[in-house]
């Protein structure tokens, strides 16, 4: 991006003669330093540039010395071992190595004995839980589903807590089919089971209990 000078904010350098300036620049010169001062500074700069153009040159031998240094540096870099070898060859003072080993040993010794200085230990019982698998023989799933409804054997009550190979489920489905679909035909209404009435309170039961309660008098 080209640099665009802002003459309102920045000074105008007297690098061109006054007659070569643009009108806005001439106006700026008249408002700030005047034409005569500008020309004087311009002449000074012209003379200065001429004075600065000359100067000494370095000795020819310097190039030879620097080229030799460059070659030496290059050969030194070529014979430099790789980083891994450099790391292995890295030297440190003996006391630093000894201090590092002592620090490591003391660290492991302390933290093996006790977590924190002053902490005591005690023996406690810990429950160990585990999952035990036992191999049992059960009817296969496919064979249970293929069995005809109404002929599924239901396991006795004593064995209900054990896994029954879905035979209970099949029996339950069977019973639902039988009981929850009432026969609503007029001929069959008389066959509906009568609801169970609550037992009537009779004095017989109290009479039977009287000898027991009478002993308490």
């Amino acid at each position, binding site marked *: 991006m080209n640099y665009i000078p*802002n003459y309102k904010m920045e000074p105008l350098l007297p690098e061109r003669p006054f007659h070569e300036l643009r009108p806005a620049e001439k106006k700026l010169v008249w408002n700030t330093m005047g034409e005569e001062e500008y020309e004087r500074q311009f002449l000074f700069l012209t003379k200065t540039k001429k004075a600065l153009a000359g100067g*000494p040159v370095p000795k020819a031998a*310097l190039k030879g010395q620097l080229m030799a240094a460059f070659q030496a540096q290059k050969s030194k870099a070529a014979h430099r071992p790789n980083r891994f070898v450099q790391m292995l060859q890295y030297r440190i003072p003996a006391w630093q190595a000894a201090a590092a080993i002592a620090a490591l040993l003391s660290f492991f010794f302390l933290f093996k004995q006790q977590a924190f200085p002053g902490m005591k230990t005690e023996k406690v019982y810990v429950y160990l839980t585990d999952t035990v698998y036992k191999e049992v023989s059960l009817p296969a799933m496919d064979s249970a589903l293929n069995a005809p409804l109404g002929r599924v054997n239901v396991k006795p009550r004593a064995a209900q807590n054990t896994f029954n190979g879905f035979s209970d489920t099949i029996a339950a489905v069977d019973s639902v089919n039988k009981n929850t679909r009432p026969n609503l035909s007029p001929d069959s209404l008389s066959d509906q089971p009568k609801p169970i009435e609550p037992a009537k309170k009779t004095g017989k039961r109290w009479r039977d209990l009287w000898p027991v309660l009478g002993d308490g008098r």
Partner: protein
Amino acid sequence: MRQIMDGCEASFSELYDRYSTRMHRYFYRMLGQDAHKAEDFTQELFMKIIEKRALYDANRRFSTWLYTVAGNMVKNEYRRLSRHQSPPLLSEGFTEDFSTGYDQQVFEKELASALGQLDEPQRQCFVLRFQEELSLKEIAEIQDCPEGTVKSRLFYTIKKLSSRLRNFSGAVLLA
């Protein structure tokens, strides 16, 4: 510079031919016109290029980077001298004749003396602009400041030097 980083000697030779005289004159002007010291600094600068060439940032212009390194060397030298003595304004080596007329020699002597009395940033700015002929943008990059600051520094330096060398106005300046 990338070839130099790979160890190419021909590239280093080319680089030296291109920049050694410029850098020597830059040091000469910045260090009180001491030719011997300028040569030592030039040698040290190129040794830095050889030894620390891996530190060069390829995204920067080489000339700008070189003048930045040289500027830092000059600053360190000023700092070192300020601890022991004041910086030399003009050395005995100035008597080398690289102009023809007597007036020109006197003017150069006065100019060198006036340059020696400037602050380091102003002197560097002036030398980079009117001796090395760098652009304002390059000087701003070397001095790590805005271009407006560079322009302002140049303006006040010219004003100060031209008023100091007022005696050379007129016939001498027009000569």
